[in-house]
């Protein structure tokens, strides 16, 4: 993919040479690969390879030797790419023969430090890497071990490091970029704060999506006081979006007095879940208390492996809650011996891999118990195929802010989605427009520089 990002310079007459060199590079690497193969296939043995050193060093070094000129040129180019203001010039120069371009850059470069900083065409104080040529290596065949080869390689690197001048560290001209960053931040900030300060439509709630309507209906269809497994599987970073989405769902469930069994496959999940319940208790006026109305089984370690174990034997894998109580023998859970005994499973995650793990490892063991996934916008494209498939592997999907349906019959309005719905929309519009403007400007520049061709 990346080959299309950079302007192609292969029209140069010098390129033929470069390819010749690369041919040699390929050959030497192949020779080494032959050597390596013996080590690959004989576990734990010290090997003696008759041709190791001779070929191994050229592998790394000749590849650079033979392509020395292009390496130095390219290194100059690399440096330029790092100083990101140069790319426009790069586009202008791209059709000139490469070697000539290299020479131009070598001879007319700007002085980077000292009293002559910024002045062009100053004679370099140090020997320029461009004029350094490595001595020609004679191919010698030696019997060496892998260790000797590595030592030789390192010695070679060290010597090379000694004889070559150390190029200046290329620092990006970051000032203008910083201004751009700050400008973007200011634009976004204003777009977020504007609706807040003017108190524009505080009543606007997120849209009612078809998915969330059906998820809501699913919850409604379950009788009050049901036992639900709720997995809070998101990292703190995206908790804003996930809290907002999950709060509206859990709010619905709390209204129906569901008994919640909390688990998580991320270490911070259990506390994330507690935090959410505290918030909903305060905001929605609920009185959910540990062991009375919910139990927190804690963190299921081991990723998908742990999840699979939990799905197969929940009582054995998570015997105690976080307070150390053997909760499975208490009234709300005593009839539950497998995950299919739950009335509903709700999983909230921002990570598509975790969402997939639940569908792939746990869902097959659920029997008739429905599963609802509450996911971030960024995970939605990966999870949606499971929702749409026939037969559907998940019975409900709530993504990001598409939670409006939960507000239609909610008295509590405990979710915090509506609080910043307007700000979010305006900020996204401004962000999108900024990108559009940038794209138009740079596309215009790019097309302008192409015209002379």
């Amino acid at each position, binding site marked *: 993919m990346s080959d299309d990002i950079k302007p192609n310079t292969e029209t140069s007459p010098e390129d033929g040479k470069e390819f010749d060199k690369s*041919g040699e590079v390929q050959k030497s690497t192949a020779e080494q690969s032959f050597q390596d193969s013996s080590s690959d296939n004989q576990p734990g043995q010290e090997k003696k390879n008759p041709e190791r050193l001779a070929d191994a060093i050229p592998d790394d070094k000749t590849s650079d030797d033979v392509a020395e000129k292009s390496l130095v040129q390219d290194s100059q180019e690399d440096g330029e790419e790092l100083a990101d203001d140069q790319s426009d010039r790069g586009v202008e120069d791209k059709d000139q023969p490469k070697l000539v371009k290299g020479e131009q850059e070598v001879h007319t470069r700007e002085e980077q430090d000292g009293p002559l900083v910024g002045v062009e065409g100053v004679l370099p104080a140090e020997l320029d890497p461009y004029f350094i040529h490595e001595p020609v290596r004679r191919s010698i065949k030696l019997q060496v071990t892998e260790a000797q080869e590595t030592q030789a390689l390192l010695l070679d690197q060290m010597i090379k490091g000694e004889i070559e001048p150390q190029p200046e560290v290329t620092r990006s001209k970051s000032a203008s970029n910083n201004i751009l960053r700050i400008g973007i931040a200011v634009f976004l900030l204003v777009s977020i704060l504007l609706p807040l300060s003017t108190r524009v439509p505080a009543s606007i709630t997120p849209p009612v999506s078809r998915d969330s309507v059906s998820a809501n209906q699913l919850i409604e269809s379950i009788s009050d006081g049901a036992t639900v497994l709720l997995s809070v599987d998101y990292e703190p970073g995206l908790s804003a979006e996930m809290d907002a989405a999950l709060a509206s769902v859990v709010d619905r469930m709390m209204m129906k007095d569901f008994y919640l069994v909390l688990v998580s496959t991320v270490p911070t999940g259990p506390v994330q879940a507690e935090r959410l319940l505290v918030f909903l208790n305060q905001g929605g006026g609920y009185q959910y208390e540990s062991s009375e109305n919910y139990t927190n089984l804690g963190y299921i370690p081991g990723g998908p492996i742990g999840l699979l174990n939990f799905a197969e034997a929940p009582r054995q894998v998570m015997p105690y809650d976080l307070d150390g109580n053997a909760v499975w023998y208490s009234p709300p859970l005593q009839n539950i011996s497998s995950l299919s005994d739950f009335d509903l499973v709700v999983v909230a995650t921002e990570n598509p891999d975790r969402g997939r793990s639940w569908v792939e490892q746990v869902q097959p063991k659920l029997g008739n118990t429905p599963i609802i996934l509450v996911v971030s916008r960024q995970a939605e494209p990966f999870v949606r195929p499971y929702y749409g498939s026939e037969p559907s592997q998940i019975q409900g999907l709530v993504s990001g802010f598409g939670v409006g349906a939960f507000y239609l019959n909610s008295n509590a309005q405990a979710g915090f989605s509506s609080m910043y719905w307007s700000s979010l929309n305006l900020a996204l519009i401004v962000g999108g427009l900024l990108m559009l403007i940038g794209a138009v400007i740079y596309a215009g520049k790019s097309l302008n520089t192409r015209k002379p061709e």
Partner: protein
Amino acid sequence: MNYVYLLYIVDSGILGLGFVLIFFFMMIISAIIVRRRDEPLLREIPTYSKLKRSINLSVESGQRLHLSLGSGGINYMQGGSALAGLSLLKRLYRMAGLSDRPPVVTSGDGTIGVLSRDCIRSVYEEVGVREEYEPTSGQVSGLTPGSYIAGTLPVILDQQVSTNILMGHFNSEIALLADASERRGSLTVAGSDNITAQAVGYASTEDLLVGEELYASGAYIQASTMHVASLHAQDFLRWAIVAVILVAGALKLAGVL
């Protein structure tokens, strides 16, 4: 053995096992063929060519390389990308381990952290300078995905890193690392198993290893037989998958399946 038992065994599992066995044999066959060849016949991946050059340049100019192995553990598929990063790690250390500024390796998972130090130590042992080994060279810079990114930022910002190689499991926060690298004028080469991270990497770095390219580092940087052979095995199975999808899709459309 009764029929029920047989049915019990014959499941998608058998198909999976068959697939793995075919992969295995294709790797062996490819290895034999690759050995006979003069040179590996692989398409050029410009990012790897650039990475090679920049590794050499860093070694020559005495600047530091930074290899970031991401925050995925080896307990699921995402660990594969970190394992691919580890195979590059040995190569990096063989080339630059004894320089004044040996490469710095960061990871966000305990197991990968242990493995990265083992790899570094084994290279020092190979060279016979075990005493040079510093246990802090393979550092765990944060133990949750978010804190790993936070802990890695100072490494990129402070340690005069000339090239940041991000190879492992990342989330969208990979853009913060790429941005920090840009602020310091360093080169960033990124690859991840996570497509979201790849999408973000596509916008924030010029040198992205897209999808499967990440796993080819051994073949392109090391040119070891088994790595090249596994690429050929991947190619074979790639076409097998294409054929299966096309044939089965057509049969489905025709109502046969």
